[in-house]
């Protein structure tokens, strides 16, 4: 079976605006965040979703992962309607789609150690207690962290480490689709490169389907095979990454590309990791691992 793993069919999402009184009086206006969006994501695709802030990227992520329901239209996970799946809150479908959040400081419970955070996640996947410790160690290794990080609390970790724990937590569910909502925009450039290289390696090693949401065209170019350009809640252009970036058809895409600094726009290879930026937090050799 080779249908799309994730599919959006004419999806719209709008939010009510105004206070309770306005709504009671029927004077409500609605903010349209997504307007009739259709998108097919094939198994193993690495799709970059780009657009300015307010273009509906994060709303799309929330719908795709089952955090919110569309106002109209349908989201399909491997051919099954998400609206039907969501009736079973803790069903096995849950673990198939997971998410990595933008702000690593709010993505982890400040009172839970790394071990507890990952352990509780594994418990929800049904991993027996006896196996959890070894799985936690495996997960930490997978995201390039050592076991000594296990007992630490989030505020004792660096931003890059927290983002990796967020990634490990998502991977702990053994998802097929991973949605990363601006996972590196809060990190500085050298850490960005580390996380991007890590994502790139994981998609290849684990066969993950990745939806990478970003406003950074240079990052999308290094990581993604397909690109979706969004503006004001609609998709203005989509296609293979090189085609869209090489021969942009839509004026908005052209403007986005023109806005990228020259030095980055032409880059085709992964961002290099500066030697002095190989922070002691990583145990793996970033280049060697790829």
């Amino acid at each position, binding site marked *: 079976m080779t249908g799309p793993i994730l599919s959006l069919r004419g999806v719209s999402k709008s939010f009510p605006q105004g206070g309770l009184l306005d709504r009671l009086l029927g004077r409500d206006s609605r903010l349209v965040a997504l307007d009739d969006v259709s998108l097919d994501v094939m198994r193993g695709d690495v799709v970059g979703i780009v657009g300015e802030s307010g273009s509906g990227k994060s709303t799309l992520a929330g719908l795709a992962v*089952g*955090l919110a329901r569309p106002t109209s239209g349908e989201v399909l996970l491997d051919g099954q309607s998400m609206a039907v799946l969501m009736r079973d*809150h803790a069903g096995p479908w849950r673990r198939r*789609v*997971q998410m990595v*959040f933008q702000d690593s400081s709010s*993505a982890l419970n400040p*009172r839970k150690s790394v071990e507890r955070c990952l352990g*509780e*996640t594994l418990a929800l996947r049904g991993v027996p207690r006896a196996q959890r410790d070894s799985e936690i160690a495996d997960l930490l290794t997978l995201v390039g962290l050592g076991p000594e990080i296990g007992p630490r609390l989030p505020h004792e970790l660096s931003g890059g480490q927290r983002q990796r724990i967020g990634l490990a937590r998502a991977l702990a569910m053994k998802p097929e689709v991973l949605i990363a909502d601006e996972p590196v925009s809060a990190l500085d450039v050298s850490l960005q490169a580390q996380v991007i290289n890590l994502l790139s390696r994981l998609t290849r090693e684990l066969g993950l389907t990745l939806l990478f949401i970003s406003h950074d065209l240079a990052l999308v170019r290094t990581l993604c095979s397909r690109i979706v350009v969004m503006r004001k809640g609609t998709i203005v252009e989509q296609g293979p990454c090189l085609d869209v970036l090489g021969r942009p058809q839509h004026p908005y895409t052209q403007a986005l590309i023109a806005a990228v600094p020259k030095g980055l726009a032409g880059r085709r290879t992964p961002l290099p990791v500066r030697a002095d930026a190989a922070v002691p937090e990583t145990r793996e050799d970033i280049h060697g691992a790829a």
Partner: protein
Amino acid sequence: MSDLRKALRGLDWSGWLGAGIVGLIVLAAIFAPLIAPYDPLALNIEDRLTAPDARHWLGTDQGGRDVLSRILFGARASLSVGIGAVLIGALIGVSAGIFAAYKGGLGEQVVMRIVDGVASIPLLVWAIAIVGILGVGPLAVGPLLLPNEVKIVVLVGCLFSPVFARVTYAVAKRIAGADYVRARFLQGASHWQIVSGDVLPNCLSPIIVQGTLLVAIGIVIEASISFVGLGVQPPQPSWGTMLSDARSAIYSGEWWLPVFPGLAISLTVIGFNLLGDAVRDLFDPRSEARTLVA
């Protein structure tokens, strides 16, 4: 345990003072039968209205009862109302606040508007009105005969609940929208797991601070209700009834009758307020910056 030790190390001098006062008064209330020099109820007409001296450190009242003993036993009424009311108020208010913040939608609106309604009526007026309606005698609830003190604890607890509900709601609203709560939801965690494991533990510090400060207000409310004769009933000692009995003494010169129960109330309230402020500073991540500015 190490958290507690770390917290104690972080207390400043006023926090220690508050903790010391509160600790002393709690001990006095618990061990009142052991440390009180006289029976607080024993009448002794020959020794009536004696000024503080070596036998009666804080003097005696119109019935010759020892003021010190009555203050020590009175601490029990004050503390049990203050602490009991805070526990009941926290139970109701925290549940309501977390429910409203986590549930959202219509439930949130209904619960928070009820909270607003209850909060809009002054505490003391409510308490006096309801005790006045119910009467000061024991209240029969099924097979149980509730003494007046229990009524007051429950009443003041209900009146405190909007305060807890608002404090909890404000914090829980922010936490319910945090990404780590979303992540737990995406893992298929149950609402109970999310609320008990992620939302509630991160709301606790402002609730504890609020609770400490409200104990002081509860003590004042108990004293006020007893002062107007609707609280602890004579001859049982309570700081409020002692002050009430001492009204006439203000004009006849027996200064020790109003001064010492009044001091006991002030000292306890100051103690809980200092402790509450210190606890807030401990929990506030910006407290270090604040001491630098001050």
